[in-house]
């Protein structure tokens, strides 16, 4: 079997006495989609932020394509170009146009010149259906449109893996689908993705593997049919029951 693209081994992290991540092992195969589910505070978002060095870990090791990418002395600036991340609150740069948001990183990192960056940005915006808004500013866009631009902005850097942190949680319900459709397309094209979500039916449909996080640990993991269809752990069952009752399944 081929080596997983990402390997997490015994990851641990505390804020003071509070143990946010308490020993997580996880493999993410190339071209696969892994979803993290679980209640707020279970450590999902922190785990994603650790993966591209926005937070440091205190125990364990993260490997990307076999190479250790955690610990002291890692050049996160270079590393992050290989690991893209999209946030819940889009975080577009409000003082730049859509095109400016998309071209700033490739140009400043020297990935390509201004002209090529713009060409790449326009074709990526075309893919996410935002080309006609290239000259608009973020505050002129709906939440769904902003999130599609944020995904395009990240994809232009041609990352090896994409981290999606509750990317539909801040959206109005009627705007969720346009973003999820886009993620579905990316998955079909073979993008490796690790995502946290509250959209259970989406996680069930898109994931190759689902992990249920509980108090900083992966309590249960497996194919979506197993975790959603026949959860083994009592905590998983109760979480899914509550989510179903809230109408999110």
């Amino acid at each position: 079997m081929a080596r997983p693209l990402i390997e997490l081994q015994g990851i641990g992290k505390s804020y003071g006495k509070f143990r946010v991540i308490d020993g997580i092992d996880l493999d993410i195969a190339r071209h696969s989609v892994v979803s993290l589910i679980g209640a707020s505070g279970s450590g999902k978002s922190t785990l994603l932020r650790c993966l591209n060095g926005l937070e440091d870990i205190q125990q364990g090791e993260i490997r990307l394509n076999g190479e250790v990418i955690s610990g002291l002395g890692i050049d996160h600036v270079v590393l992050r170009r290989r690991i893209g991340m999209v946030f819940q609150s889009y975080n577009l740069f409000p003082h730049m146009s859509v095109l400016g948001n998309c071209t700033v990183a490739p140009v400043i990192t020297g990935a390509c010149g201004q002209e090529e960056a713009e060409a790449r940005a326009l074709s990526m915006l075309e893919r996410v259906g935002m080309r006609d808004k290239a000259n608009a500013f973020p505050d002129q866009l709906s939440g769904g449109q902003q999130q599609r631009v944020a995904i395009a902005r990240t994809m232009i850097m041609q990352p090896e893996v994409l981290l999606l942190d509750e990317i539909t949680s801040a959206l109005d319900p009627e705007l969720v689908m346009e973003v999820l459709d886009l993620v579905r397309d990316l998955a079909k094209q073979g993008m490796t993705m690790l995502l946290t979500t509250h959209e259970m039916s989406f996680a069930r449909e898109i994931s190759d593997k689902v992990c249920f996080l509980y108090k900083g640990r992966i309590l249960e993991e497996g194919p979506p049919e197993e975790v959603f269809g026949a959860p083994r752990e009592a905590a998983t069952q109760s979480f899914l029951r509550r989510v179903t009752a809230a109408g999110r399944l």
Partner: protein
Amino acid sequence: MTMTKTMGDPVSATAADGATRQTPPLPTGWPLAMAAAFAAASVGIAFLAGSSVAALIGETMRLPGAMLAALGIALVLAVPIRRALAARSRSREAWTAGDPVAARVAAAHARHHAFTAMGVGGFLLPVLAVATFLTINDAVVYKTFLRGDVILASLLDVTRAFGANLSIAITAQILSMLLGLLLAVGRSLQGSSFVLVRGVCIFYVDIFRSLPAIVIIYLVCFGVPLMGIPVLSDGDPMLYAIVALSLTYAAYNGEQFRAGLKGIHHSQISAAQSLGIPPGAVLRLIVLPQAMRRIAGPMLGNFIALQKDTALVNIVGIVDAFTQAKIYSANYYNLSSVTVVCILFIAVTIPQTRLVDYLVARAETKEGR
């Protein structure tokens, strides 16, 4: 067939005995009483103002002038007060006639007219008081500060000297912004390696914010030439004044920059970092442009304060507008030349304060652009 629901209407809520309770109109008594008080005070001051203004024409005009002014103001204020009284009695009639809605509407009108009378009175009181002050005792105040011949004689020289104020202000603003930015960035450096740098920046800001600008100007402008250090001590007094004000305002501008940098939400930095943008570029391209938009207003406020503090350089003998005006006021034994200084400062400051208001409002309503 229609069904009407009265549920949730507090005004026509049904009381326990089945009768509909009605909320009475808003009070009209105290607004009318206050309007009357404002009107009485305005008429009184109008009497004084009319008397002293008319006395400038001739002593015999005093009483007619006073009567005329009082009568004019009384007539103006009588209009809203009469309307308020009429609306108040309409409201009472409607209430007794069992029409609570009409009563409430009329009471609202009565209050509106009463507040209008208060508002006009609130405008007239200070205006008439100033008119009285300027003209009383044969317009002695007016003649001390606003003598036309002194203003004309000093206008050209004072305006020319005001150029010194402007060039000190502009140069010191640029220097203090650069130094301030350095202080702010120094103070926001993370990690244990930079603890000393952070300490120095905090120390600088604390010291220079506690010292009066006039003391620093004095120390720099007299102290540096006194030290006799080659090159450093051979400068122009203007240069020393600019340095002194730059040192002072760097502390204020530095704090402004720091507030601006801190005000950028951390998620913006996370997003920039996650795209692989290096730290220097995150500051330069993402954080600073957004921070600058937000602090443009307060920063301009500091600049206005700096412009006004340039008048302090007169203590070290630089001929600025104030120094020049004092020479004229000593020659003419009259302060009207200093009024010219006031007018110049007002003329450059008011447009800027309006711009500050606009920038602050824009920063609050519109993100970016």
